[in-house]
C-alpha cells in the first residue's frame, strides 16, 4: 500500500503549480475577477495546450486519459491559484456529465471540443428550491424543448452549450438557442460567476438518462473539494508567512501560542482535508464500493475546514486580513461559494448517515 504520490503524479502537481503561478498570478487573478465573465481566451488556450481541459477524458476524444487522483492534484493547484473562469464548469463538471451520460456520438460532438479547448460549457442543476437532491428537480423536457428556470449556474455566459438536468434526463442546450435567457447573479465569489438560465420553449437535445449522473457529480464534488484544499494551503502559507514577519510587542506574532496554535490547527485541517480528497480520488478511480461515502466525507470535511481555515487566517492577519487588498478574502469568498455547491457539510453528513447509519454499521472498506 502506498498513499503517497507517484513520481509522475508529483511531476503533474509541480508543473501545474508552476503553470498557474506563471500564467495566473495574484494580479492576473484580480484582473480577471473584475471582468464581466472572469474568462480569458489566451489563458484558456494555454490551459488546453497543457492538456488540462481533457485531463481525465479518453484519448479517443482528445483527452489525456489520466485518473481521478491526477484530477484532484490539478484542481488542488488550480485552487491554490484561485484560478478564475469556467475551468471547473467546463473541464470537470460538464465534461464528467458528458462522459458519464452521453453516447459515443455525443462525446465526439461535445466532449472532444471541451478536451481540445474549443468550447466552454456548464451544467444547470439547481432550481428555485436550491436543492442538490436530484429528486427535487421540477423542470421537465416536453417534446424536445424546455420551459422553466435554473439558478446558480456557474459560467453560463461564456458557455457554448449548457447541460441541463431535468426530471426526465439530461439535455444539451446550445447557447444560441431560441428562448434562452442568461442573467448574472451577484455572488460572493468574484472569480466564478453565477447566472440564472431561463428557458422558454427552448430546443434541447437529449443526452441521456439521469441514471449515471451521480457518477459525474461525485467526480465534480471531489474536484471541488480538491480545489478547496489548494485554497486552504494558500491561506495557510500566507498566514504562516505573515505570522513570521509581522511584529508586535517587539516580536513576530507567530511566537505567541494563541497565534501559533491556530496555525497548527490550520495545518491539521488542511492536511486532513487533503487526505480525504486524495482518498476520494482514489476510490473514484478504483470504483471502490465506498466511493460515494468517500466523496461525501471529503466534501463534508473540506466545506467546514475551508471556512475554518479562512476564519483563522483572517483573524491572524488582524486589520490587514480585513482589507480588500489582501487576497485572503478572495479565497474566503470562494470557500463560501464552494461550501454550498454540490451540497454543504450538513447535506453530506445526512448522506453519510443514510449510507452508514441506515445500514447499521460503518460501511468502509477495510484495509
Amino acid at each position, binding site marked *: 500500500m502506498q498513499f503517497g504520490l507517484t513520481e509522475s503524479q508529483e511531476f503533474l502537481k509541480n508543473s501545474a503549480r508552476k503553470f498557474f503561478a506563471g500564467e495566473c498570478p495574484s494580479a492576473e487573478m484580480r484582473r480577471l475577477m473584475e471582468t464581466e465573465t472572469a474568462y480569458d481566451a489566451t489563458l484558456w488556450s494555454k490551459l488546453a495546450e497543457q492538456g488540462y481541459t481533457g485531463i481525465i477524458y479518453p484519448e479517443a476524444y482528445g483527452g489525456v486519459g489520466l485518473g481521478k487522483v491526477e484530477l484532484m492534484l490539478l484542481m488542488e493547484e488550480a485552487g491554490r491559484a484561485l484560478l478564475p473562469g469556467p475551468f471547473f464548469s467546463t473541464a470537470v463538471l460538464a465534461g464528467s456529465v458528458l462522459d458519464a451520460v452521453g453516447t459515443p456520438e455525443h462525446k465526439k460532438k461535445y466532449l472532444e471540443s471541451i478536451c481540445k479547448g474549443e468550447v466552454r460549457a456548464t451544467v444547470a442543476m439547481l432550481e428555485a428550491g436550491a436543492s442538490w437532491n436530484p429528486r427535487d428537480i421540477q423542470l421537465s423536457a416536453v417534446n424536445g424543448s424546455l420551459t422553466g428556470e435554473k439558478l446558480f449556474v456557474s459560467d453560463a455566459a461564456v458557455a457554448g452549450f449548457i447541460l441541463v438536468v431535468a426530471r426526465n434526463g439530461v439535455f444539451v442546450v446550445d447557447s444560441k438557442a431560441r428562448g434562452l435567457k442568461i442573467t448574472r447573479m451577484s455572488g460572493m465569489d468574484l472569480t466564478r460567476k453565477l447566472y440564472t438560465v431561463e428557458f422558454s420553449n427552448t430546443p434541447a437535445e437529449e443526452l441521456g438518462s439521469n441514471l449515471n449522473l451521480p457518477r459525474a457529480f461525485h467526480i465534480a464534488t471531489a474536484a471541488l473539494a480538491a480545489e478547496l484544499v489548494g485554497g486552504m494551503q494558500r491561506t495557510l502559507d500566507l498566514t504562516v508567512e505573515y505570522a513570521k514577519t509581522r511584529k508586535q510587542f517587539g516580536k513576530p506574532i507567530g511566537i505567541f501560542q494563541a497565534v501559533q496554535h491556530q496555525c497548527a490547527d490550520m495545518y491539521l485541517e488542511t492536511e486532513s482535508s487533503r487526505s480525504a480528497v486524495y482518498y476520494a480520488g482514489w476510490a473514484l478511480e478504483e470504483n471502490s464500493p465506498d466511493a460515494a461515502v468517500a466523496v461525501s466525507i471529503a466534501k463534508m470535511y473540506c466545506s467546514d475546514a475551508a471556512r475554518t481555515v479562512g476564519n483563522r487566517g483572517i483573524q491572524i492577519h488582524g486589520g490587514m486580513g480585513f482589507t480588500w487588498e489582501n487576497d485572503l478574502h478572495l479565497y474566503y469568498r470562494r470557500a463560501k461559494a464552494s461550501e454550498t455547491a454540490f451540497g454543504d457539510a450538513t447535506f453530506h453528513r*445526512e448522506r453519510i448517515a443514510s449510507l452508514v447509519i441506515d445500514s447499521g454499521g460503518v460501511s468502509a472498506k477495510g484495509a
Partner: protein
Amino acid sequence: MDLNLTAEELAFRDELRAWLVTNVPKDWNAWREKPLEESFPYLRAWQRKLQEGRWAAVSWPKEYGGRSATLMQQALFWEEMARVDAPPMANSLGLGLIGPTIIACGTEAQKKRYIPKILSAEEIWCQGFSEPNAGSDLAGLLTEARLDGDHYIVNGQKVWTSYGSLGDWCELVVRTDPNAAKHKGLTVLVVNMKSPGVEVRPLRQMTGESEFSELFFRDVRVPVENILGKVNDGWNVAMSTLMYERGSYGARLHLIFKRFITRLIELSWTIQRNARPAAEDPVIRQKLAQCSAEIEIMRFNQMRAFSRITATGVPGPEGSIQKIFWSELNQRLQQIAQEILGSYGQLLAGDSHAIDKGIWSYAYLRTRGNTIEAGTSEVQRNIIGHFVLGLPRSY
C-alpha cells in the same frame, strides 16, 4: 498512489490471520478489562504464545526475534489484532518502546541480557520519564544520578509510570550533569525495580483505576554498565523512544473507534429520543455521521503518514497531527455517546441498569486523559508550529 496491499503485505496479513484463527483466546473480553494486575498472568501467557509464532515484536529485526516488518506490515499487525479483539501483550512498553531503544542504542551485552526476556514477558518494563515538575517540559527533570565509583546513586521521583507496580526494569531518565544546559545533562539508566530504595505507589486517576504509579528513588545504586547510550546523551535516547511511541501503534485506533461507533449506531436504533429511535433524529444523525467521517479521515491521515515515513525513513514532526486528531476525536465520540445514552450514560460498571457493563461512563472519563498523555495537545501544537511550520519557538 496505490492503496491496495502489495503481495508481501497480503502474505504477511494472511499468515497472521491464519495464525490468529487457531491461537487467539476466545475468553478475552475486550470491552472491559479487569484491573491489569488480575489479568497479568493471562497477558504474559498470551505474549509467550505470540512469540512462539514470532508475532510479539514484528517490527524488530529478525536477528533479535522479530520479523523486520515494514511500517505498513506493522500497521497491518495492529489492525489484525484489533480486528479479532486480541488481548494486549503484557510487556507492551518493553516491546513497543524500550526494546527498540535498546536495539538502537544499547551495547551487545545489554541486548543479550534484556532483549530475550522482553520478548518472553519474563521481565516487564516500565518507563521513568515524567516527574511532578517535568511533564511537557521533560528536559526540566530533576531526578539526579551521582557517580560513586562504578555505581550511580539515584535520588528523585517519577510519576505517570505505566506498569510501575508490575515492572521488573525501568528505563529511567536522570540528570547526570546538573551544570550542563538542561537537555545536555541527561542520561538514560536501566534500573532494576527490585533494587533497595525503589518505592512504587499506585496513582489513582479520575476513572477510579490505577493504570499509573508514582516511583520514588532513595539512594538507589545502579551499576554504570546500565547506562543506555552515552552519558549525558539521554535526551536523544529518550526522544528516540518517544518517536516509537508515535509510530505504527496508532493503526489499531481506527478499528477500536470503529467498534465504538458501530456499537453506538446499533444502540441509537434501540434508544428512543423524541418518541422515535435516536438514529432517526436529524441532529443525532449529523453527529454520528461527522464522527464516522472523522474516523475514516484519521485512517487516511495515518496511511499517508506511514507512506511518508516509509519513503523518508524517519517519523517526522507531522506525526503530531495524528496525536491531536485521534485524541480529540475520541473525546467527541464519547461525548456523542453520552448524548445518545442520556441518563444511562453515567452508569458505572456493576450497576444493573448500565449499558454494555458501564463501558461508556468509563470511556467518557478516560478520554479526558487522551489529550494529556503521550504529549499534550498543546505540546503537539507547539511541535507543529515550530518544527513543521517554522514559526519561532514559543517557550
